[in-house]
């Protein structure tokens, strides 16, 4: 280990129980997985109870809530559907995220076995495993995600910066300019009157002053 310039002697040593309580992250190679297991069958019941209201009983999504399944082969489409099955590169992320941050509004309420079961069910919903599959810390890294090779590291330094650098055009840069699209045609900006973009003075006058709120 490198030598350090100085130590301030601040803080105290973290206890193993404290690290175990907070350090829950799981890496793509399975580092961080807790011991445990769960089946598609158990996952279906747990998912319906804990997740289905927002994500749909088949993980297909309800309303604007995220779809967790479907969208295979749509990534190059006009409107790609990015789900665990169609987009996510690593299964570790599903376990890690569900375990720590789901259900929305009641996070960290699921046991490790329940998260294995839910993860198994999400795999099943994406046609990645059969209905008798049991996921555990032992077979976890054997699962192959369809879009595992779909990502590449930021290459803007090679593909963009060289072509968008240097002295830009200042005069006679193009012969003509036409308006090709207008925001007011879509008309999706929030506004309280039909006439103007939202923060107009008149509308503000109708709202309580901050001091009074």
């Amino acid at each position, binding site marked *: 280990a490198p030598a350090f310039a100085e130590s301030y002697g601040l803080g105290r040593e973290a206890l193993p129980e404290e690290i175990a309580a907070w350090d829950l992250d799981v890496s793509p190679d399975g580092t961080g997985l807790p011991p445990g297991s769960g089946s598609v069958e158990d996952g279906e019941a747990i998912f319906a109870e804990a997740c289905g209201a927002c994500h749909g009983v088949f993980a297909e999504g309800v309303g604007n809530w995220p779809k967790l399944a479907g969208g295979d082969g749509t990534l190059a489409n006009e409107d790609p559907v990015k789900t665990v099955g169609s987009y996510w590169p690593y299964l570790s992320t599903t376990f890690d*995220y569900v375990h720590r941050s789901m259900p929305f509004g009641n996070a960290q309420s699921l046991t490790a076995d329940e998260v294995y079961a839910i993860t198994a069910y999400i795999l099943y919903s994406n046609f990645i495993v059969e209905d008798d599959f049991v996921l555990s810390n032992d077979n976890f890294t054997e699962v192959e995600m369809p879009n595992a090779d779909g990502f590449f590291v930021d290459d803007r330094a090679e593909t963009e910066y060289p072509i968008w*650098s240097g002295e830009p055009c200042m005069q006679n840069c193009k012969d003509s300019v036409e308006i090709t699209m207008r*925001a007011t045609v879509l008309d999706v900006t929030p506004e309280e009157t039909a006439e103007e973009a939202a923060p107009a003075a008149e509308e503000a006058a109708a709202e309580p002053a901050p001091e009074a709120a």
Partner: protein
Amino acid sequence: MTQDSKSGTSRRAFLRGTLAAGTAVAGAGMARAAGPDPLITEVQPWAQGLGDGVDATPYGLPIEFESDVIRRNVPWLTADPISSINFTPIHALDGTITPQGCAFERHHSGAIELAKPDYRLMVNGLVEKPLVFTYADLERFPRENHVYFCECAANTGMEWAGAQLNGAQFTHGMIHNMEYTGVSLRTLLEEAGADLSGDKWVYVEGADASSNGRSIPMEKALDDVLVAFKANGEALRKEHGYPVRLVVPGWEGNMWVKWLRRIEVMDGPVESREETSKYTDVMEDGSARKWTWVMDAKSVVTSPSPQSPITHGAGPLVITGLAWSGHGRITRVDVSKDGGMTWETARLAREGENKALTRFYLDTEWDGSEMLLQSRAMDETGYVQPTKAQLREVRGLNSVYHNNCIQTWHVKENGEAENVEVS
């Protein structure tokens, strides 16, 4: 306050009045008063009576006439307002420092309330000694002060497919710029005896339910990342991470983890949800860029703009806006009034600061004709802000994040402006 006193600042009334006046004085230089102004000739109540005492407002808010200078959200953008975004009213601000009270928010499980006595920060992983700090511990380390912009990776993201939202607040308002006080991340890593080798990574996460965990390469962690507890002179606002957040200069806002609770030194990236499912940029062929951390050079004219129309008729006009770059300093901003056919170099209010907002002005004379206003930023690396067409040519339409295209406002003869795309 009565409606009468408000009507003096009403934009529509103002517009009506000034357009009429503008016609009368066109080409005539300075306006001539039609008669004595009662605001001058009659004694006004504020010149006669008394104002508020110094005990009226222990911590003040803006005067009510400025009540339109507020954060706004766009309900259809997200499934609910908890994991959502709102927008800084950049169309109405000037200078570069964002008032904290109207600086945008982006949460994934809401703005949590975390008191200083309850605050703990853990440093663990590849360290000689895993540590727990209290808030009070953090205030005893040597401090730094820096001004940086925090721009959401999704700023302007709704505009990839076309001109959608009509106002700079909505198209470019997922940004704020503050002066931060804090401890360098390097100091805390050294205190724990972390392995600082160049191939190591630092995983950071927040105390909220979403955790917002992100992986940062060691080189950046040791360079300029701050563990900040003050912004613009005072404690962080609850919604901005009180009492402690990460400041990651020049890099996408998602990595500025709020309510920071844990820093883990690791052999590799976690590839968390926020760096796989989200904050990855789908290209035209369906493959996706990951780890697109830096926010490239960008600018926008904040006035005139759809929410800040020209209300004074022809004559002297201040065109102003903001420019910034995650690669360093802004060195130049050019402004076009004709949709990019010709450009003039604007005046920077101050020399560009490293990875911070820069204010530009073009002091000009408006002849009352239509304009297609654009701004184009250049940074110290020589990078020139591209057009949306140039970006689309490389990336397609579905990359969601990192839209730093040149924005066009169509300013009409009546002074109103609209978000448009041009050929």
